[in-house]
């Protein structure tokens, strides 16, 4: 009797033990480099622009090809890669959210945009289940994926916007290769890869690779940093003819820092911001070249914590969708103006310039459609507000503003998160 029970027990243990190993664990990457991939294509094909492609891609690293050279599968596949969101963080928060096509705010009235029921990813790795980068130089870099360092073949394939995964697509679609190139990744380095338009009129596209320097640079713990880079391609005929409005070729950038003036505004009366002394349309830099792979970060002041609160409550972000004039919130914010360095004056006919009001709420910012709302004039606040244990604390950040034709893609790299408020 006793023997039977022990045999039964042993059998039970064996069954339980062998039942445990359900999933294989992803092996650790040896000597990893870190990559993040974006699709920066902002325009699509239409009947007058047959030379352009639809901005929906599959990213392949080290592809396997068939006898005809058509990619079949790859070591790393970043499928359903749509045009990136205007705002991206350095860690994977809200990565499954969408801005174009999927939104319900800001579609043409009276109907919102039709819902996009097919998968769309705004970056690789995004929310993909892959090993990501560790904290380097005090930055949370979990939006970068680990890949083996060394030489890699990179391919981008134009794919239709549907729910079919890359490996099941027809060979005529898989043969629509947009880019095919080889890159070398160094061990421990952080790379941002972006598909950019080099010359839209002639249908030329390219890969922009930036070896991120912010992991090697010292940053003042109590300062905000912002860097600009122009990733537009050649100026298109449409832009020259005024059909579309794009950033100038040589961009002069000025910065203003605004603080809410409580006494003057009458608290809830007319909104009233005053510039912080020294930051009223102050010249920052001029971008005279495109596709720069090094970014110079400009230090900007970080206001004391008390400036972000009013009577103990956190001040408010701007509501992008509220009509003027009650559009502004009450948090301090930066405004960047982009002028033509050759003709540094506002547009003669409309009096307007390109600008970025960094005053929006980062949580909802990407929900607005950049094509149908005024959201392109806004960006999330450079001061990162974090709620920890019921208390708000404002952290400085490092920001990369990437200018692509008619919009600014903002990448915010969070820092100081290891400090307790």
């Amino acid at each position, binding site marked *: *009797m006793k023997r*039977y*029970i022990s045999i*039964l027990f042993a*059998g*039970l243990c064996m*069954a*339980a033990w*062998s*039942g445990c190993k*359900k999933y294989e664990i992803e092996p650790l990457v040896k000597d990893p480099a870190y990559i993040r991939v974006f699709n920066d294509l902002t325009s*699509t*094909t*239409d*009947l*007058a622009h*047959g030379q352009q*492609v*639809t901005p*929906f891609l599959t990213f392949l690293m080290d592809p396997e090809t068939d006898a005809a050279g058509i990619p079949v599968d790859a070591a790393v596949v970043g499928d359903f890669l749509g045009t990136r969101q205007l705002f991206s963080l350095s860690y994977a928060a809200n990565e499954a959210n969408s801005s*174009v*096509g999927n939104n319900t705010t800001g*579609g*043409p009235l009276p109907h919102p*945009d*039709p819902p*996009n*029921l097919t998968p769309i990813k705004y970056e690789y790795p995004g929310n993909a289940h892959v090993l990501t980068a560790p904290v380097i130089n005090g930055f949370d870099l979990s939006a970068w994926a680990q890949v083996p360092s060394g030489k890699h073949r990179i391919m981008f394939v*134009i*794919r*239709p*916007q*549907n729910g*079919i995964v890359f490996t099941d*697509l*027809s060979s*005529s*679609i898989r043969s*629509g290769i947009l880019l095919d190139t080889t890159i070398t990744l160094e061990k421990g380095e952080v790379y941002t890869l972006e598909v950019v338009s080099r010359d839209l009129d002639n249908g030329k596209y390219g890969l922009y690779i930036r070896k991120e320097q912010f992991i090697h640079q010292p940053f003042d713990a109590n300062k905000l940093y912002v860097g600009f880079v122009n990733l537009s391609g050649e100026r298109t*005929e*449409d832009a020259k*003819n*005024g*059909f*579309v409005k794009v950033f100038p070729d040589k961009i002069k950038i000025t910065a203003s820092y605004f603080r809410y003036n409580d006494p003057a505004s009458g608290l809830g009366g007319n909104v009233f911001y005053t510039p912080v002394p020294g930051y009223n349309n102050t010249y920052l830099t001029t971008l005279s070249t495109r596709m720069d792979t090094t970014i110079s970060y400009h230090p900007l002041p970080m206001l004391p914590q008390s400036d972000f609160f009013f009577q103990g409550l956190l001040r408010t972000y701007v509501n992008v969708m509220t009509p003027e004039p009650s559009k502004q919130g009450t948090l301090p914010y930066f405004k960047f103006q982009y002028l033509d360095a050759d003709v540094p004056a506002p547009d003669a006919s409309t009096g307007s310039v390109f600008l970025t009001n960094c005053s929006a709420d980062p949580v909802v910012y990407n929900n607005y*459609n950049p*094509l*149908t709302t005024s959201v392109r004039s806004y960006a999330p606040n450079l001061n990162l507000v974090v709620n920890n244990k019921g208390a708000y604390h404002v952290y400085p950040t490092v920001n990369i503003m990437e200018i692509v034709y008619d919009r600014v893609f903002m990448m915010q790299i969070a820092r100081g998160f290891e400090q307790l408020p």
Partner: protein
Amino acid sequence: MKLNKLYILPLLLLISACVKEPVDVPQENGDDRPLLTILKNNYNFSMFYNAVQRTGLDKTLEGKGPFTVLVPDNTAFTTSGITADSLAAMDTASLAKLLRYHIIPEQIRYAAVPQAIDFPYETLAGLPVYTGVPIPGPRQFQNLTINILHINGVSVSKTDILAGNGVIHALSRVLRLPAASVQDALDKDPQYSYFVHALKEFGLWDQLGKPGVFTVMAPANQLFDQYGVTEAGLDPAHYRKMMVTPYIVNGHRFFSTDLLDAPLDNAQPGILTPEFLQTINCYNQTFGVWPLYYKQITDLVGPPYWGDPYIYGPAASLVNSDHLTGNGIVHGLSDLPMRPDSARINP
């Protein structure tokens, strides 16, 4: 002891739970009937089936394939002005060539069509057909939850009728064999004789026979008749060259269905040439001509134009459209966007 036997039961259950063999996913329920059987059994495809039999192409379609057969249903034949009698009267060789133009020697299901306009697929006739599907985006207003497919500007009424050796897409019109060139297409069509005469008079005729890409918006003779313009009167002595230049869209090729599949941005009213703006209104499906200084007109809601940049003539709809040729496409127009009075040389 009885209790011990009960222990064995969960043990067996646990062991079976450990087996992690890949699950056999049932195969997709495809149709393994051959193409010919589907054509034969479908009354709506009877005209196409009869034609296939008469030309002996049934031998081809019996083959292993796979084939993509673009089948105009009986309604499509009627819409294209072909009756059972006239189909029977067609000579076998040219009918065979037309039918071969409807067969692509590879399997192309809807999901396999690239998201582009004018994507070529070679047919058995040795000439390409061009597929067009809606390009997603903020300007796209077609219902993307249904499979919209256009072939040479012809709508597909039913996609993905699966067969054992291929796939059938049902067409809503019979495809036309492309003419050799735009010149050829215009020359063959007697209703464009005034336009052809004018093109020759203004020295624009020769380019339309050469390689290149053109979309020609051809005004028919009766439109000129309406304004009392005679064929002989269409010459440089009476009219400026702008009488005909706006009708040639150089460097672009689009079917009428592309206007909805790949509409232009709202900010872009059309295609700019050195002399005009050839406007293409994708939602009204019209073609028109604006002067280059149209912005000054649209900004001024007052005399003389009251903000209306159609100063040469009205926007015209596309009629009798999508005549594919070797170097472009010919569409007909419902009106003259360049009124003869706007181009007349006043004595």
